């Protein structure tokens, strides 16, 4: 029965360690956004093609837009 003098503080210490880990996680903002990470996990295995085309497309678009604005 005297064991309880050791066991209870040890149990509380272990619990305290878990609590410390939780507090660290909370301070690290891990509970800030609970929506995005689960969705992000789905995308991890998806590949993206080379983006050279994209850059030119967007820039062209922009140039064309600029032109129409100037001529108006």
């Amino acid at each position, binding site marked *: *029965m005297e064991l*309880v*003098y050791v066991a*209870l503080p040890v*149990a*509380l210490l272990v*619990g305290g360690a*878990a*609590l410390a880990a*939780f*507090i660290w996680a*909370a*301070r690290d*903002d891990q*509970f*800030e*956004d*609970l*929506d*995005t990470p689960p*969705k*992000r996990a*789905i*995308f991890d295995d*998806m590949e*993206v*093609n*080379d*983006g050279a*085309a*994209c*850059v030119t*497309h*967007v820039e062209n*678009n*922009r140039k064309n*837009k600029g032109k129409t*604005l100037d001529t*108006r």
Partner: protein
Amino acid sequence: MSEASIGPELVRRHDSSCAHCGLPVPVVEVRAIDPLQFCCSGCRAVHAALHECGLGQFYALRDRESVADASGAEPALVTGRGFEHLDDVRFLGAQTRIDDAGMRRAELRIDGIRCGACIWLLEAMPRIVRGTVEVRVDSARGIARIAWDERTTRLSAIARRFDALGYQLHPLGDPDAVKRERAVNRAWIVRMGVAGAIASNAMAVAFALYGGILTNMDLSFRLFFQWCSVGLAVVAVAWPGRIFLTNAVAALRARTPHMDVPVAFGLVAAVGSGIAATIRGTGSIYCESAAMLVFLLLVGRFVQYGRQRRAREQVELLLAIVPAIARKVTIDDGRERIVDVAMDALEPGDLVEVPAGEASPADGRLVGGSAHFDLSHLTGESKPVRVQCGGPVYAGSRVLETPIRLEVVVAGRQTRAAQLLELVREAGERRAPIVELADRVSSWFLPTIVVAAIVTVVWWWPRLGADQAMARAVAMLVVTCPCALGLATPLAVVAGIGKGARRGVLVKGGDVLERASKAGTLVLDKTGTVTQGRTRVVRWMGAVDALAAAACVEMHSAHPVARALVDEWSDAKGGAEAKGSGDAQASGVREIPGLGIEGRVGRRLVRVGSMRFMRERSAIVSDGMHVFADECKVAGLAPLFVAIDGRVEATIGIGDPIRPEARQTIMRLKRAGWRVMLASGDDSVVTSGVAKSLGIDARDAHGGLSPEEKLAFVQRGDLARPVVMVGDGVNDLAALAAADVGVAVRNGAQASHHVADVCLAARGLRPLERFLVGSRSTMRAIRVNLAVSVGYNAVGGALAFAGLVNPLVAAVLMPVSGLTVLMLALRLPSFELSEIEKEQS
């Protein structure tokens, strides 16, 4: 995945839904030969950009993500702006930093995120845009964290690429406020975690303690357990529970009653007497009850805080009504240049350009020609308003056809739109807080047990001696542990909200259900709630031929009435193929602003317009047409005449048709005791016409209300509480925030969802009725739960007083009461809809 493999899947979609956003494609946008149709040029541009970037998987992902959520669809917006203000040195200095790797990092608000596929697309940007190192999206808060290499790119270039895909980056309004909010949220989570850990440990210790008392454990062990229990409770009250103590002290200083005063009293009494009993070595302690109470109350408060935080954040997003960036016209060496400047940087006298379809960034005077504006944001008026040269233009009003220029009169916080937002904020803050039923019950709960325990001791001490009296008091305190009571409401509320969500009723909190559970006053906004929210041909009379001719002429106009006529005609002909397929072409079409339109179809001269237009062109109107036009007016419709070669051949009633189920539902609500009122920004004549056909009293129909008048309307003292306001426009925001319960309808203005307490997934009155029925039955469930737990505690307390419950039995029974309530909450059907469903079938 290549374009070829994605293509056929898209072609299989319904012909007339947009390949990007899935919304129906307006007839004027339909391109007959295209396999893919788009609802607007924005969606078309984004679709093209995605495919050229090899990002076609977006659609596959999006479809997988949000098949069930089609109601959230919105067309993509591509602004084509320069975003030069993001390269401003002041902005870069204040809101960005350089990280260890030498990359610049910024946190920006991002607009346009709709689903999981958007997150994927945005976070894939570093792989396709040179110079972008990292993009992390927080979709819940609409924030993007971007890191880029300053040597190879600029933030404005990144913003332009985001824009090309339909996402706009804006600087955070107040970065410090965002940081503060985040810190407060962190503090709440830590507080709750600590309280939960302590409460569960205190419970474990309590089991050992009460078990030991029963089996005559040595005093030394008992004291050890008591010291552990007291220590844990002291930590619980002093760390996470301190918030209750400080609140109570503040309330006492201000001499105002507050829920936290009895709670603080109970906590201090429980811990204080526990310490005293342990020091004396005799007597009972009930520290675990205190620890548990701290935890359960914190959970409730956290849920409440989370809701308020969301609302606050979204009010900031409201500023998006007014564009954050203005296109300022500057004269440089005699040449005009257009530069992007932040809205705040505008000053009176500046000249700004507003592209067609965009909102004005400031209040100002129109320069150059006249133009049409959509003021529905500000006034709720559904018809476009024509502003003459030199006339006033308010920030947030959308320019319809042509780009305009305006001279700024006031900008920033002084604009009408900004003042409207201020009103929203104030109205939300001023709303009288209700003390929830559970709070009312728990506020007298702890003091009551403390008193009951004292009475037990005082009563039994002279009769049975100190030890026996203490044992009975311990039993009483344990058996009446507040966990059942603490759980009763949250469980029923969670069950109710969950069941509501599955039925398309999104309720933001338990207090909302409580407020809406009694019948009071129901204030409906006309547009979109009781009507379909679109200008359409409701009825017509005359020759089909005339309608065809009118549609031919109206095809050349972008006026909403013209759209309605063309839509009606193509629907009558069976869908999209109508356009350009063999119809006669109109020629020489001339639009006379405010009157009508005229043109030639074949050899016939066709005129479509108002009565005044007919009179001015001296067209012959038959008596039958006159009578029909009057009928239309009474029903709240605008009559439109079609004259062919100087003779009126058809009359069309144009208006916003009433939803088919509206009248019946309103009747049922009235029977249930609700006073149903109509408050609309639309014209009074139209409003009373709609009220009449809905069976609403004429005195309860109010039209032509400005946002300020709507706010005053819901705050009127003579209305029966609760006042439930239903609306979906930005002009309803202040009223939604001020009403006891604000109900927004999905697809309404984005901002209204955030201000409102309830969002309905579908338009119309059926979901509204569901919400009202649901909140009533959820409240019933809460009352049953509270009654059960209070009854349990009363019976348990009485048994303990009589000495029929010893501490061990009490310690076992304690969690059982919590379990009982849990089972009850899960079994009680909170959203019982069978009553109205049955009635309807």
